[in-house]
Every structure is written in C-alpha cells, then in structure tokens.
C-alpha cells in the first residue's frame, strides 16, 4: 500500500506538473492568463483522435501534427484576440474564457461524447516494482514530465529565444530597449504554452477517455497548481504538483476517490489565506495582493 501510494503519487504529481506547465509558462512570460487552456488540451486530444481514426495517419505523425496545430492555435488566439486587449487583464481573462468555452461546447455540439473517444497507449503492458503493478504509459508520463522540465530549463537559460522570454518576463521596457519584440515573444510564449498543453493531452489522455468536461478539470487543476506554487515560478510548479499530487493520491487511497478534487480546493484556500502570492513567488507579490 505504501509503495503503491508513493509510486502512484509520483505519477499523479507528474500529471499535474505537465498540466500546469503550459499555463504557467504563458502567464510567467507574457502575463496572459490563458483561460482557454483546457479547451486547447481537449482540442489536441480530439484532433489526434480525428487524425488517427478518420484520416488514418500514423500515431506519431498525428501527435506531431496535433502539437503543431495547438501551437498555431495559440498564435492565432494571441494575434487575433489578446493583442487587441493587451494590458487589460480582466478583458483578457473574459475573452480567453469565452473562447475556451466556445471551443469546448462546439465539440459537445458535434457529439464528441462517449467512450469510443480514446487514444491508444504508446506501449502496451505493465511491469511491477515490488508488488505494485504499473503500466508503461504511467511511467512514460513521469519520464516526459521530467524531460520537459529539464528541456524548459535549458531552453529558458541557454537559448537566445529563451533568454528573450525571460527578459520580457523580468522587465518589459528594458527588454524593449534591447530590441526584443514584446508582441512576438508574447505570441511565441502563447504558442509554446498551447503546445505544452497538447503534449500533456497526448501523453495523459490514453489513460482515460477524451471528454469535454475534462477540459474544465484540466483548467482547474492547472489553476490549483499555479496558485499554490505561485504563478510564473517553475520551482513552485514542481513543488506544488508534488504536494497536491501526493495529497490527492493519499486521499484517494485512504479516504474515498470522491474527495480527490476537494484536496485542490483546500490547498488553494490554505495557500491564499497564508501566502496569497503562492509558495515560491517573490517579485509579483505586491501586484496581486494588497
């Protein structure tokens, strides 16, 4: 039981970290809270399904196309909607929220509901650690979460684009004087955030069915992790997803699975009362709270 909790808690944490990564990246760099995040997640899931089952494209290619599509969608949202209302956070939230809702409900309207909407796992089968059985897909999730974290770290610290991202995040005006195009970086951060959502969708969705409600759940989980960890802080995201992931798994194992979603709410409530800017956020403390 204990070993199982440890392993499945780790997988759960990896899932949460994957979900929160894209949302956090976009917010941390361009300051845009992308409330259409859950919709992008669902969109990528369904587009892989359509590419795979209706058009008969090989799985790997379908995945790559879906990720590319999600990134393009992010760019389109940024240039079509967000750029026109940039600097008005409340309008940004309302517009992305409305857009996400429209996308998700459009899938519901076209009857994308049911158990047949599943993605195949990458490698079938499972193996055991001690007396705990774990399937390969869950292990892949863990590996990809770790890999993406390191990849993002390298990207933001050792590439020109990544450094430009961080420059915009730290001080937009100074970055402008260095010739960094803030709009382009914003658009790219949105595209990257959406691509990360697509990667998360492709990796996580084979565990269950693709459902429209899942989009809302994804958004809530991402928000919970980001609020607890502190928006815009990568270390915070990791710590928060481990915290929430393990407490969810423990609740599910020792109490009842129904209570799992409540853990996030309680975590949010506690963090907001004690330290509203999140556990690991320093610089933006004054902006979000007074």
């Amino acid at each position, binding site marked *: 039981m204990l070993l199982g909790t440890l392993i499945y808690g780790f997988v759960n944490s990896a899932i949460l970290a994957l979900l929160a990564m894209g949302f956090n990246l976009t917010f941390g760099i361009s300051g845009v*809270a992308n*409330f259409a995040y859950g919709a992008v997640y669902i969109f990528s899931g369904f587009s892989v399904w359509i590419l795979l089952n209706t058009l008969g494209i090989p799985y790997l290619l379908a995945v790559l196309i879906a990720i590319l599509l999600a990134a393009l969608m992010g760019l389109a949202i940024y240039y079509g909607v967000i750029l026109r209302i940039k600097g008005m956070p*409340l309008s940004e939230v309302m517009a992305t929220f409305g857009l996400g*809702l429209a996308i998700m*409900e459009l899938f519901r309207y076209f009857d994308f509901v049911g158990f047949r909407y599943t993605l195949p796992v990458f490698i079938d089968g499972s193996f055991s650690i001690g007396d705990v059985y774990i399937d390969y897909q869950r292990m892949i999730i863990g590996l990809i979460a770790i890999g993406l974290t390191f990849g993002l770290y390298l990207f933001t610290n050792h590439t020109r684009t990544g450094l430009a991202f961080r420059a915009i995040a730290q001080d937009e005006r100074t970055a402008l004087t260095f010739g960094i195009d803030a709009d382009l970086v914003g658009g790219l951060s949105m595209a990257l955030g959406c691509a990360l959502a697509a990667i998360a969708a492709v990796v996580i969705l084979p565990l269950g069915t693709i459902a429209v409600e899942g989009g809302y759940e994804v958004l809530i989980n991402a928000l919970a992790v980001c*609020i607890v960890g502190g928006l815009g802080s990568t270390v915070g995201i990791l710590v928060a997803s481990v915290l929430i992931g393990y407490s969810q798994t423990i609740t599910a194992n020792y109490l009842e699975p129904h*209570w799992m979603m*409540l853990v996030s709410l309680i975590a949010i409530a506690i963090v*907001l009362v004690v330290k509203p800017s999140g556990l690991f956020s320093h610089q933006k403390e004054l902006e979000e709270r007074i």
Partner: protein
Amino acid sequence: MNRRKERIDRGVKARSADIFALTSYREMLYLMIPGAVPVVALLCFSPMLSDYWREVIISTAIYALLAMSWDMLMCAGLLSLGQSLFFGIGSYISGSLNYYAGLPPILTLPIATILGGLLCTVLLLPVLRLRGIYFAMVTLVVPLMLSRLVEATRILGGTEGLTGLTPFPNQLTALFIIQLALLATLFGFRRIMGSDYGLVVKGISDNDRSVMSAGLNIYWYKAQVLFLGASVGCFAGAFGTHMDMFAGMPGFALDYSIMPVAAAVVGGVGTFAGPLIGAFILVPLSEMLRALGSLRMVFYGLFLVVFVVGMPEGIFAYIQRKYQQMERWVDVS
C-alpha cells in the same frame, strides 16, 4: 478623409443638468424617459405576452439579476467567473428550508437572500485580498468544487437534489415578484453607484492603493459590495429554485457563470442598465435558438469574445451617446 465626426451635447441635456430642469416639461420628460422605459416595458407589457414568453421573461430576469450582481462586483474591481456560486447557494438555502422545514416561498426568498449573501461573503472573505485575475481564478474554481462536495458527501440530496419544492401560486405572481426585484436592483444599484459611496467603490477598482492612503478600509468596502452582489445572486437562485421546484447540483453549473458575464459585457459594464439590456438580448435569442441545443453556450462564448475585443463599451453606452449627444460631420481640410 477630410472630415471628422463631431459630438456635442444636446441642448436639452445641458438645460436639464441642474434644478432648472423643473421649469419645463420637455426637460423633465427628457430626464424621465430613460428610467420609465424599463418600468413600463416590464410591468405593463410583459403580462400581455403568452404563457411561453412570460416563462422566457422570467428566466431572462433571473439571468439579468445575476448579470447585475456581476456588474456590482465589477464596480469594485472584482471579476467573478463564478456567478453560479451565488445562484447555487441561494438555490440550496431556499430549497432546503422549503424541503426540510416546509417554509413557504414568501419566507424562503428573503431568508435565502440575506443568509446566502452573508454565507457567500464569509466564504469569499479570505480571497478578497486578491485582485484581478487571481480573484477570477478562485471564483471559477469554488462553485465547481462545491458541486463536487455535494456529490462526495451526498448531503442535501446528493446528485439527485431536492425535488418537489413548493412552486409559486401562479405564473403572474412569479412574474411580478421577479420584475419588482429586477427594477429594485437596477435603480438601487444605480443609485448606490451614483452616491459618494459609489465613488469610493469605483476608486477601489481604479486605484486601490490611493483609496487606502485616503484612510479608507478597502476590505470593508469590498466585503460590503460582495454582500450586495451576492444577495442579489442568491435571490436569483432562490427564485429559480421555486420556479423549477428543484434545487440541485445544476445550480452550480457553468451556464449561470458565463451567461451573466456575456450579458454584462454585451450590454456595457458598470452601468447596470447594460447587463439588463444584454440579458434581454441574449436569453430570448438563445431561446429562439433552442433547437441548436448546446450550441448556445458557443454563442455566449463568441458574443463575449467579440464584444470584449470589438465593442468594449457595450450597447448601453452607444444608446446613451445617441440620446445625449448629437453627431455631425465637420470639414477639417
């Protein structure tokens, strides 16, 4: 393009700006007509409609109340994406009072309004220190979590909800109750925001730190505004419960969150008349599109995006401009 549009206040607006408006019928009429339009339209014309359209007006009014409650919060800079929290809480309070204690609607409505307002205020009190998108995120999460709580603990009827509640005696009574509430909210909120108190509330949304440095406790003001908004939302919930004779988890559904925001943005934020107009455009429209099923949520979402991006001032500001100002093209070459 050697010309530009010039806007000048109408003479009658300037003349009716102060006490001398009382000297002429025309000026008094000019001042009174905008206020009289909703009163006459609601109280006189809606009872003449058919049963079906009265029903539509009632559900429109419920959404309009939620939209005005959203607008009140927005006046203090609190963006709520979870109006269904208020709706659900009001609905559960009046529903359980009626179901378990057998109280009639005439008692459950006021109790649910006050108690629900207090409950929501206390519930969101720790979050009031947040602002902007942080507040929005929390309000988005809370109603969904509450419906999970009901599902997990199976309290208050669990997933089935409370059924067989007392309905209103007849449709006309319900119609008048909700319309009176609607008008009272509209004029009451407009009055509040026009007073000095409203000035402070507006100041909180514009620049909270300067209000703080004026020696005012902004949390106390925010809590009061939250109570006002939440009470109106809870009234809408309580009313809807008795209308449907059902209280349950759908009260926390996303419909009640997105629709008020869309209505308020379409109509014009911060005017209270705007959300009313927005609701009276969007809800009957979606009623006509009922055959499209869940596609109407898509419409709400798209309306929201288009108006936030393309016409952020809303319909009401446009009408107001036409009413108060005259426009003409001027040669500037």
